[in-house]
């Protein structure tokens, strides 16, 4: 287990807070996921919030939409940063998968959670 690996969830409104709370409640794992809201932020301030949440840790940043202010802020500050991988379209299945695969190297855990998250979308 990579105890240093962190997940930062960046989303509109209260989505991040709710997703992190639900993931922690289901898994019993805490202090790994950090929620960040874009409420009341211009891009610079949102970038600062994300940087504070990452705090130098190797991190998967989960973003709600595949475009828009949250993704722009993350990529503007952390594009090309080797210790940061960005996964868009965050959902609960993705976060739970992340919490239980933190032993994987950063690039692999990002691919793993993206695959699990997209696989959770089904029509029945």
């Amino acid at each position, binding site marked *: 287990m990579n105890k240093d690996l962190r997940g930062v969830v960046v989303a509109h409104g209260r989505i991040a807070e709710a997703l992190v709370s639900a993931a922690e409640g289901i898994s019993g794992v805490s202090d790994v996921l950090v929620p960040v809201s874009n409420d*009341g932020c*211009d891009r610079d*301030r949102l970038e600062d919030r994300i940087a504070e949440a990452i705090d130098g840790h190797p991190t998967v940043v989960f973003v709600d939409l595949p475009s828009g202010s949250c993704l722009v802020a993350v990529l503007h500050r952390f594009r090309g940063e080797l210790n940061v991988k960005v996964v868009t379209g965050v959902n609960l299945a993705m976060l739970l998968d992340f919490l239980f695969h933190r032993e994987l190297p950063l690039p692999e855990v990002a691919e793993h959670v993206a695959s699990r998250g997209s696989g959770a979308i089904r029509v029945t």
Partner: protein
Amino acid sequence: MSIVLYRIDDRLIHGQVVIGWGRPLGAEFIVLVDPEVSGSEWEQDLYRMAVPRSVDIIFADVEEARRRLPEWQADRRRGILLTGTVAAMAAVCRNGAGIPKINLGGIHHRPGRRQRLPYVFLTDDEYRTLMDLQQQGPKITAQDVPTAKAVGLDDLA
């Protein structure tokens, strides 16, 4: 006139612009006036991802925007002109430029700014710039999304 929305929004192109305003207004092009983005291809790619393929995006700095504004105003398509700052909008709309309305969409907190609405923070200088701009013709209101109530500049003092 084919620019149907002039907006100041420091998040530039994002959901409120593309979905909140762009859809009901039937926007077919967006002019983003921002010196940093106009000089950065990868940032332009990032903003293109936020917009449907049917919507054209034009990236410009202030000088180009001043020069090409009449061209965009004469475009047969419906467009949105967007700046990230009060100063940039004031520079583009010099002497009113035949603009009927300017929308304050999102100007967030920074040191020196005072809250006027939950999504509008202005320094006193920015407020004065907007008052001067309004005296040149455009009516200026704050309204983050079309379903919200428009708030006049006098009520933001």
